[in-house]
């Protein structure tokens, strides 16, 4: 009976997720480029051999992981603080709640274009400010060691509201009685945060982490518009590299290989994270 009820959902997942994955897996064992007339021709795993020795792919994988881990960590910390603040009762809270959601509501390409102008050298306001302070040119979008931080910043600005929203919903699900009881037992507000709020919020934190990690690992539009993967490839992500292989180099076999490899890396990362959390006992509240 359970299976029967779950069948529509499983079918949907199979169609929109399972089939493309299988198709990618199949394509990754074929050459499908202009050299083959854009028709798939089996190439005996040559794509995977190429991937293993492809410095650009591994560099991009490292950069993508760095981007995802750092921006999601920052977003979580910020979102927790904002959610706690927005959960308190104060005048004008409704308006502020609506305002904090605004960055999330903006299309990514629009906001990336906006940041590109703001950080532009030499005409952007940041650059003008730096010059008037006598700091000289910052070249924020053309310095490989700095530009990736700009992409992190833009991502944090844009998606913190998303985590805030989930955490706020979580906070509202915690019964007020628990806090009253805790206070009655002589607990301080800080202790309440550690002993009541955080443990009960944990499922929401983990859920948003999962969502955001998967999303950040597949980052494409933000990087494509803000930096185009530059300078010198320092902000290129796996998804962007897969796009370039397909759309610019017209090598669809290798593009599928890159995309699939990115998916496998993400899965491995999440699996490792889950095992780690399990080993320290953090996942127990989820097993209810």
């Amino acid at each position, binding site marked *: 009976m359970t299976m029967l009820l779950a069948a529509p959902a499983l079918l949907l997942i199979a169609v929109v997720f399972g089939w*493309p994955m299988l198709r990618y897996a199949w394509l990754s064992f074929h*050459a*499908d*480029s*202009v*050299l*083959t*007339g*854009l028709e798939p*021709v089996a*190439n005996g795993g*040559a*794509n995977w*051999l*190429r991937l293993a*020795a*492809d*410095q*650009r792919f591994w560099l991009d994988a490292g950069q993508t992981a760095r981007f995802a881990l750092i921006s999601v960590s920052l977003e979580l910390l910020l979102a927790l603080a904002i959610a706690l603040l927005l959960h308190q009762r104060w005048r004008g809270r409704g308006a502020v709640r609506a305002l904090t959601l605004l960055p999330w509501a903006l299309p990514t390409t629009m906001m990336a274009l906006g940041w590109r102008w703001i950080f532009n050298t030499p005409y952007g306001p940041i650059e003008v400010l730096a010059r008037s302070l006598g700091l000289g040119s910052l070249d924020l979008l053309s310095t490989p060691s700095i530009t990736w931080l700009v992409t992190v910043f833009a991502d944090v600005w844009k998606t913190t509201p998303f985590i805030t929203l989930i955490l706020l919903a979580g906070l509202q699900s915690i019964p007020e009685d628990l806090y009253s009881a805790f206070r009655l037992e002589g607990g301080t507000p800080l202790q309440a945060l550690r002993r009541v709020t955080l443990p009960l919020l944990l499922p929401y934190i983990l859920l948003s982490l999962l969502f955001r990690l998967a999303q950040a690992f597949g980052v494409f539009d933000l990087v494509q518009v803000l930096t*185009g993967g530059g300078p*010198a*490839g320092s902000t290129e992500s796996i998804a962007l590299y897969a796009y370039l*292989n*397909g*759309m*610019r*180099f*017209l*090598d*669809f*076999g*290798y593009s599928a290989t890159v995309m699939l490899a990115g998916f496998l890396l993400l899965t491995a990362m999440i699996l490792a994270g889950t095992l780690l959390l399990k080993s320290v006992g953090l996942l127990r509240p989820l097993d209810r």
Partner: protein
Amino acid sequence: MKLRRWLAGGALALLMALGVLVGSASSRAEEVSILMPSSFTDASADLVKTFNREHRGRIHLSLIRGPLNTESISDLAISSLLLGDAPFDALLMDVTWLPKYAAAGWLEPLDPWFDQGDQEQLVQGARLGNDYDGHLYRWPLVADVGLLYWRTDLMDQPPATPDALVEVAGRLVNSETVANGFVWQGRQYEGLSCDFLEVLQGFGGHWMDTTTNTMELDTPAATAAAAWLNDLISEGVSPYAVTNYAEAESLQAFKAGDAALMRNWPYAWAELQKDDSTVKGNVGISLMVAQPGERPGATLGSWGLSLMRQSQHQEAAVEAIRYLTSETAQRQRFLNNGYTPIQADLFNDPQMLKASPVLPDLLEALNHAVVRPPTPLYAQLSDVVQRELNGLFTAAGSADEAMSTTQQRSQTLLRAAGAKP
């Protein structure tokens, strides 16, 4: 295929909107549109007006103003071509795109319209890079080649061999006459591949044989070329900073009088003659050095017009292509915008020579033009070369190792993409 179509959808919608905006005008005339980078549409505005006046009621030409960036415009064109219904009849193409577009079956051969006689009018360098698989797919609009700029106040004649270059530049640096000897493009990007190709040619080597898909990057000549470039940096003939130099940085150093020699494209000449240039009047143009007995090479840049296979107005589009590449058009584009012409006799034309005394030097370079490997996989192969060479310059290692890795990675790449051995 579905996914590709879907991805391309957005770009097409944008193009169509552009097309509608640019289109308009008379309804009876045959509508022809050509997609170009914005710098070229802007330089051709007057020509389009004249063309439309002369063809009133028959053909109406409109240029679609694409992005300035070379890669962005290719992405835009490819997105709409993958859909199978591009809203332009012709496309202005960079020399490195042609094999990819031709192999994908997007281009219509121009052989029926341009014959041997037309070809013979062209300067040697402009005849290259227009063919794929025995068919003509592109007609050149402007020529572009790599050049060696030298300081006439620091040396009597430009160096012709690698040893002579090291000697003269090294001497000028050691005597502290100039800060840097030779500036070029060592950053990890396409410019490095162009520089390498010239030096490779000068050492008698080749990148690859595209008829058999054989890479030739671990040959003694290729290794010697890579080692020579690396030694320029390690021996101080070139500053370490060239490992992050593109054209603009090299030009900046040379223009400020901080370098004795520079590798760059023809556009640099006009920049060096401006009033803010320290070296104005002290600059000569020559060819990249070559070993005694080897032919020097000048990497071919260049843009040209291609006809789309699915165009409904092929005859009219070719008429527009002919007009935009005519002698009048070349003259106008050279005098107003400094674009190098493609027709041989224009290089001896008094009016043109008056505008630029270096035309004969450009002609000489165009006669030594070499093309980057005309394979549909060029972009990826070039990426491997850029990575390995820049890695060699910036980290410890030998040219031998770097070139043998380049060779191996290039071969794996060819195999994975389905190249027949």
